[in-house]
Structure formats: structure tokens, C-alpha cells
């Protein structure tokens, strides 16, 4: 064993990709996680969708005749959020068990640890989004015939998932206790879904709820996806949906980057 190895720099992207690769390999190799992530959104669409559809007589709250199509973006948002929460849990677990020390003594940028983690969450959200769309279409949702619209939709989902993933990673960096993490997340989780236009149009909401919905990034993701991936009509301009979602992602990443480069760095 002769000693002539140049320990090269993987570079920010290279290292981020390695961490992303590890997470994805674990995800794809873990049958239970894969199964759970596919089944959960399918159950949402199937059970909640069919229930609500019968209640509404097939008419969507926005006046169209496709309730399944109306609620799909909300399920996509919910799944992306679930994925982000899971990503935070993995990080918390790796922190508490000391696994991240392997990263901390390595000559790698702290930011690449964040990007690798957030990146794998986004990939899982994409994967779930596709499953949900597929199930939705099987159940009668109408897809936009323009593939450009799908791309914009995926851009929106990427921004949203990055933003929430960063938030979850920040919370997971601030506590050592899984219960505390869950308590914080539950506090976020409910209003994010119900204080938005995911299940009902904003036009039907009382003023204070409408105000709440307007500061919730979920509203912009849902509205944007309705307009681009599906054939629904939006209540907000598409450019605004893009601006808000991307701003959310950048702000989330920025906050998480600060926590990762200072908070987790050294004691």
C-alpha cells in the first residue's frame, strides 16, 4: 500500500452529488420507504378525492367539473412537505448518532452537505409528484397538453420542495430531540395545508383566512400547478406564483446555509 494518493477536491457540486447519490441509493434500496412514499399520496387521492368528489357531486369548488384535478396540486404539495419532513428527520438522526462527523472532518464545504440533503428531498418530491399525477389522470384529472406547462410545474415544485426541505433542515439542526422536532413540524404542517387554496378556492375564504393563504407558499405552488400541469384556471398570475415560489426557495436555502456554516460547524 504505497502512499501516493492525491486527495482531490470533489468541489461543491461533486460532493453535493455524492451525498445526494447516497440518499437516493438508500431510498431506492429501502422497499418500505419506497412503498410508503408511493402509497400515501395514492391513498390521499383515492380516499379523500373520491369522498370529496361525491360530496361535491363532481363539481370542483372553482366551478369546473373536475374535483380530482382541483385537489391534485394540494396532494402534491402535501407529499413534498412530507418528503421535506422526512429529510429533516434523516439529518436529525445522522446528527444525533454522530454520522455527520464523517462530513465534518472531511475537507468539504458545509454548503454541499445542505445541497446534497435538500437535493435528495427534491428528487423524492418529483418522484411522488409523478406518481400522484399518474393516479390523478387515471381517476379522471385532465393534464395540460403542453409539455412546456409541465416543465414550469416542475420548476414550481422544485422551488417549493427546496424551500420546505431547507426549513425542515434548519429545525432539525436546532434540536436534538425527535419529539421536539415533530412538535415543531406539526405546528407548521396543518396551517400550511388548510390555510391555503389547496382544498378550496381563495374566493370562498373569509378575509383573515385569505390573508393567511396569501402568505403561504403552498397557495402559489397549488395555483401555479393548476394553471400549468393541469387545465384549471388560476386565481393568481402565473408570474407571481413563480416569483413567490423561487423566493421561498432562495430564502429557505439562505437561512439553512447560514445555520449549516455556523451552527453545525464547530463547538
Amino acid at each position, binding site marked *: 500500500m504505497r502512499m501516493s*494518493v492525491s*486527495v482531490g477536491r*470533489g468541489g461543491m457540486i461533486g460532493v453535493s452529488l455524492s451525498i445526494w447519490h447516497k440518499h437516493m441509493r438508500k431510498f431506492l434500496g429501502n422497499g418500505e420507504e419506497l412503498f410508503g412514499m408511493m402509497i400515501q399520496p395514492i391513498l390521499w387521492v383515492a380516499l379523500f378525492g373520491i369522498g370529496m368528489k361525491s360530496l361535491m357531486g363532481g363539481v370542483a369548488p372553482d366551478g369546473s367539473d373536475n374535483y380530482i384535478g382541483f385537489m391534485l396540486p394540494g396532494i402534491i404539495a402535501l407529499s413534498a412537505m412530507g418528503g421535506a419532513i422526512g429529510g429533516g428527520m434523516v439529518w436529525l438522526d445522522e446528527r444525533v448518532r454522530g454520522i455527520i462527523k464523517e*462530513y465534518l472532518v472531511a475537507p468539504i464545504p458545509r454548503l454541499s452537505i445542505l445541497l446534497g440533503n435538500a437535493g435528495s428531498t427534491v428528487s423524492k418530491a418529483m418522484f411522488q409528484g409523478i406518481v400522484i399525477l399518474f393516479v390523478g389522470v387515471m381517476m379522471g384529472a385532465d393534464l395540460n397538453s403542453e409539455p412546456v406547462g409541465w416543465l414550469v410545474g416542475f420548476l414550481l415544485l422544485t422551488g417549493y420542495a427546496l424551500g420546505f426541505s431547507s426549513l425542515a433542515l434548519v429545525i432539525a439542526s436546532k434540536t436534538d430531540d425527535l419529539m421536539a422536532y415533530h412538535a415543531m413540524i406539526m405546528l407548521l404542517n396543518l396551517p400550511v395545508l388548510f390555510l391555503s387554496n389547496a382544498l378550496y378556492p381563495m374566493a370562498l375564504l373569509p378575509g383573515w383566512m385569505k390573508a393567511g393563504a396569501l402568505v403561504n407558499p403552498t397557495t402559489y405552488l397549488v395555483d401555479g400547478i393548476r394553471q400549468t400541469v393541469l387545465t384549471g384556471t388560476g386565481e393568481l398570475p402565473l408570474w407571481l406564483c413563480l416569483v413567490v415560489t423561487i423566493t421561498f426557495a432562495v430564502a429557505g436555502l439562505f437561512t439553512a446555509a447560514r445555520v449549516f456554516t455556523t451552527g453545525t460547524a464547530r463547538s
Partner: protein
Amino acid sequence: MIALTDPEGTPGPVPAIETRHLAKRYPGDIQAVGALDLSIPTGSTYALLGPNGAGKTTTISMLTTLAVPTSGSALINGIDVVQAEAQVRQQIGVTFQEMVLDDALTGRQVLDYHGRLYGLPASERTARIDELLELMELTEAAERRCRDYSGGMKRRLELARALVTVPQVLFLDEPTLGLDPQGRAMVWDYIQVLKKRTGMTVLITTHYLDEAQQLADLVGIMDRGRLVAEGAPASLVDELGADTIRVAGTGPVDALVNRFSDLPFVQSISRVDDGLLLGVRSSSRHLAEVVTLVTGEGFVIEDVSVAKPDLGAVFFKYTGRQMKDEVQA
């Protein structure tokens, strides 16, 4: 990058690890390490020996850039661990006290991702990993998830992981903690083989006396954050004398110290918690004489024990306490 002279200007090889007045204080005024001065030559194996809580792990944390010193400095191959942490990280390999393995991965994957983190090209990774798996006798288990590994296999895998990047300085924090005697002996063998093959500098922390004695060229005995003795294990032990006699009880210890310091057969005297520790040329020849003298000075003996000195006796001599007393602390 690597300075050829030390900052004092004295020419000579730069030590692989050097600390000056290195100290770490944690919130709540807990002094984990205080004014530690180490100079560990390149290519040597150095064991930091001490009970739990002596400050060994904190020292390693500072040397491996995981913790920032409160004061003092530490250099790895002449590079400052605070000023140039990235460069230091390029040169070191570490195994931690607790096992930190992603146990959903196979042994080979653990090593492979580690190599990727350091940007090793794929061809180099494969060759190196095969070699290390072979060396650590893990080739057959390489494709199994490491959650199914035994404790000893996990330790060997961690050792292999620390070596993927060919570090110049290897830090092993309690490398045999939690292993059965057989597992410990195996890990010792691997460390010895590694040393022979690579010539790297190794810093081991341990609270096992036999481990330090077996593996190290140099031993530093730490107690309560300070280095209390340092030297080659054999010379530290030899300083004590051929045998040790420990006399415990109550009475005028100072008078005894004076009395014994004049006697030619006494090679060392130390005061310990409950009496005296004497190093003598031959305990069988002098035991009766010692007991007579001690009693003659009005000392009431509760216990007398005779032993061949080891690093435990060295620790006892310098701290006045048994190492095992502190393990529970």
C-alpha cells in the same frame, strides 16, 4: 505548505502533531483540557492514556478540527488547525469513539462514499477499497449491509474508511471500546500491520493500559485535562523500579518519604491517596524490611501489595489514584 523549520527557528523536522498550551473550556467553566503541550514525531504511534473524562476525546476533537480551542495552538504537519482547517482535513483520517456507520449501506458502499467525499477518482477508489477490504479481512462481507456486522467488523470497517484517503496522520479515539478481548487483539494486529506498511503517524486515545503498552512508541498519561507523564512505555515503567510495593494505611507519610529516600534499594517513592508507592529492586528481598520500617515510624498498615510495575502503576504514581477508580466517573 509544510514548514521546514518550526516557528522558533530551530531547524529540524516538523512534528506531525504539535500543541502549545492547548486548552479547551466548555460553558459552565468546565476545563476539559488545560495547557497541553505535545510534540509527536512523524511516523510514531502515540497513545494518550487516561481515565474517562481526562480530556483525551476533547484533545482529538481539537486536533481534527471538530472543536475550536479556547486558547493555545495546535499544528498538524506544521499547519494550524484553526487558521487552515481545510488543509488539515486533507491530511487526517479519524475514527470516532462511538461507531458512526450508515448501517443501511454495505461495507463497500461505506468506503466508496467516503472516497467520493474526498473526490477520489473511481478507478483509484475501487483499487484502494479492494486493497483495504483485503487488509481488514472484510472482502467476503463487503457486499453485506454493515448493520449485520459484528462489533469488531464495524471497527475494522471504520479503520478502513479512515484509510481510504491515505491520511498522513491517523487519529483513533478509543479504537477498541466495546470489543471483546479477541476483537481487541485483532484490531491491535491491524493497527500494527498498518503501521509497518504505511509509516503514518498514529494518535490513539485509550483507557486500556495494555493497549497503550502494546501499540505505542510513546505514551502520554492524561489526567484531569493535563499531561502528567510522557515517555516510551518501557522507560516509564522502568522508572518505577523492578517491583512496586504499595503500603496503605494511616500515619506520618512525610516521615516515611524521608526515611525511604535514603535507602539504596528504593528506586522511586510516590505519595498516593492512602499511603505510599515504592519502586524497589526486588520486592521479595525487601518486603519484610519495608514493613518493619513503616511500622517503626508509627504508620498503621491496613494493606500491603506487591506488583510488577505496568502503566497502571505509572498512572498511580503520577496521579495518586487508580485508573479504574475514575472509569465510573
